[in-house]
C-alpha cells in the first residue's frame, strides 16, 4: 500500500471519528434540551427551586444562626447542604429512568441511533443543570455576606463548587436507583438510604462513636469514602484534586452502574 493511500485512509478514519464525536455531543445536547424543557414545562423545576431556596434560607438563618455568629462566612450556609440535598436531590432524580420505563418511552429512546451512554449522560446533565441553577439562585446570600463584612470570596467559590459536585454525586446515585425500578417511591427511598450511608460514614458524631470499636486507621479509611469528608475539605477553601476526583468517580461509577442495570433489564 502506498504512503499516499495510507494517509488518505487515516484522514478518512480521523474524519469519521470527528463526525462521531460531534454526533455524540449533538445527541447528548438534544437529550439535555428535551429534559430541560420537560422540567420547565412541568411544575417540577419551579417547585424544586422554590423549596430549595426556602429551606436553604431557613437552615442558614434560623437554624445555623447566620447573624448570631458575627462572622463574614458562608459556612452556616454550606453546612446544611449534605442534609438538604439528601431529600431534595433524590426527589429530582427519582423519575429519571423509572418514568421512562413506566411510560415505555425507554423503548423509543434506546431504539434511536444513539448509544445508551449518550442517553444516560444527557439525562444526568440536564438534571444536574437544574440543581446548578437552583444553587446559583442562592446568590443573594453571597451579596448579603459581602455587604455585611469582608468574607474570603475564594472560599465561597470553592464552597459552591463543592456543593455542586455533592449534588451531582447524589444525583448520579438517584439516577442509578431510578433505573432499578419503575416505582418512583422505591427509587426515592433507595437513593435516600444510599446517600445517607455515604454521609454518615464520614459524619463526625458517627465516626467519633466508631473509633471506640475499630482501629482509627480503619475508621479513617471508611470515612474517606464519605461525601462529608470531601465536601468539608473543599468547603475549607482547598480545591484538592483528590476531592474533585472522588466526586467525579462517584458520578462515573453510578452512571456506569446505571448502564449495566439498563442493559440487564433489556437482556431479560
Amino acid at each position, binding site marked *: 500500500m502506498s504512503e499516499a493511500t495510507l494517509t488518505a485512509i487515516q484522514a478518512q478514519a480521523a474524519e469519521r471519528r470527528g463526525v462521531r464525536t460531534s*454526533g455524540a455531543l*449533538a*445527541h447528548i445536547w*438534544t*437529550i439535555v*434540551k*428535551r429534559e430541560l*424543557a*420537560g422540567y420547565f*414545562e*412541568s411544575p417540577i423545576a419551579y417547585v424544586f427551586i422554590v423549596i430549595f431556596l426556602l429551606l436553604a434560607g431557613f437552615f442558614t438563618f434560623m437554624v445555623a444562626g447566620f447573624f448570631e455568629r458575627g462572622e463574614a462566612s458562608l459556612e452556616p450556609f454550606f453546612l446544611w447542604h449534605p442534609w438538604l440535598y439528601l431529600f431534595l436531590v433524590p426527589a429530582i432524580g427519582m423519575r429519571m429512568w423509572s418514568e421512562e420505563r413506566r*411510560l*415505555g*418511552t425507554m*423503548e*423509543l429512546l*434506546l*431504539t*434511536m*441511533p*444513539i*448509544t445508551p451512554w449518550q442517553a444516560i449522560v444527557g439525562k444526568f446533565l440536564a438534571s444536574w443543570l437544574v440543581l446548578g441553577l437552583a444553587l446559583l439562585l442562592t446568590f443573594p446570600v453571597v451579596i448579603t455576606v459581602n455587604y455585611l463584612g469582608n468574607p474570603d470570596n475564594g472560599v465561597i467559590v470553592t464552597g459552591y463548587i463543592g456543593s455542586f459536585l455533592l449534588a451531582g454525586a447524589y444525583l448520579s446515585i438517584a439516577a442509578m436507583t431510578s433505573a432499578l425500578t419503575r416505582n418512583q417511591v422505591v427509587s426515592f427511598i433507595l437513593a435516600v438510604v444510599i446517600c445517607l450511608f455515604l454521609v454518615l460514614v464520614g459524619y463526625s458524631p458517627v465516626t467519633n462513636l466508631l473509633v471506640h470499636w475499630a482501629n482509627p486507621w480503619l475508621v479513617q479509611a471508611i470515612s474517606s469514602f464519605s461525601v462529608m469528608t470531601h465536601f468539608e475539605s473543599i468547603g475549607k477553601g482547598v480545591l484538592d484534586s483528590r476531592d474533585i476526583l472522588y466526586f467525579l468517580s462517584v458520578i462515573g461509577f453510578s452512571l456506569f452502574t446505571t448502564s449495566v442495570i439498563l442493559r440487564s433489564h*433489556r*437482556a*431479560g
Partner: protein
Amino acid sequence: MIRVQELRKYFGQTKAVNGVSFTVEKGEVLGFLGPNGAGKSTTMRMITGFIPPTEGVVSVGGFDVVDQPLQAKRLIGYLPESAPAYSEMSVRGFLGFIAELRGLRGGAKRSAVDRAIEMCFLGSVAHQTVETLSKGYRHRTCFAQSIIHDPEVLIMDEPTEGLDPNQKHEVRTLIRRMGERKAIIFSTHILEEVEAVCSRAIIIDRGRIVANGTPAELKQRSHSAGAVRVQFGQSDSSVGSKLSQIAGVGEVVTLGQSPLTVRVFPKEKNAAEGLARAIGETAARERWQLEELHTEEGRLDDVFRSITLPDTKPTT
C-alpha cells in the same frame, strides 16, 4: 433488507422466541400474526435492537443489529406496542426531538416534522401536549415519529390497535402505500388487515413460525378452501343424496335448514376444480332453485385457529 436467522430469546426458563428465521425485502409488507404471548413483540424488539437475542442473528440493510447497532437503527423506524411518547411535550416538540435524534437539523428537521404531521393528520393537535390527546391521536403521534426520517425499514407493533374504523382504514392505506418502497413488518390481531395490506404473512405460535406464505396461500390451508357452498330457494329432502352422487364429491355438510344451505367438500382437496360447475349442471337437470353457488377461498381465521390451537378442531 431484514434477515432474521435462528433467532432465540429465553427469559429464564421461558422460551419466548424459539428459532425464528425469515427475510423481508424492499417492497414487501410482512404481516406478523399469532396469539397473545406468541413472541411477536419480543421478535420485533430484537429486530429493532431494544433487547439482545439469546441466540441467532438479525441484520438490517446488511448491518448486524448487535455488532453495528447505530448503523442498523438508522435504517429502522419503530412503532412500539404501547405507542409511547413523552407526555409533557407538544406533538410538534416531540416529533422535533425525534427528528434531531435521527440527525435532522434546521430546515430538514422542520420539513420532516411538517411532512409527518401532514401524513398522519395531526395538524389540528400539533401544539397540544401529548397527555391531552385522545388514544387515537397519541397513537398517530407515535406512528408519525416512526416515519419521520423516511426509513427504509418500518417495524410496527399493532399499528391499528385502539383506532376507530376510519383511522384504521387510513393507517392501512398508508402502510400499503409505503410498502411499495420499504420493507415493512407489522403485527396484528385483525385477520382482515392481513388480507388487505400484506404481501406475505407469518403466523407465530409459542415462539415458532407455524406458517409463512402469501395470504392466498395461507387461506388454501383452510379446511373449507375449495369447498362449494350452495344455498337453495326451495328444496326437497333428496338433494343431499343426489349431491353426494356427483363425481368428485366427498362430504356434504348441512349448514342451515331454511333456506337449506350446504357445503360440498371435494373428495380430494386438490381436485376441487370443476366441482361448482358439476353441481350447477346437476341443479339445472334436477330443476333445483339455487340462490347461491360459489367455491370458497378458505378463511384465514380458520387457518389461524387450526394451526395455533392444534388440539381443537376448527368449527364452521
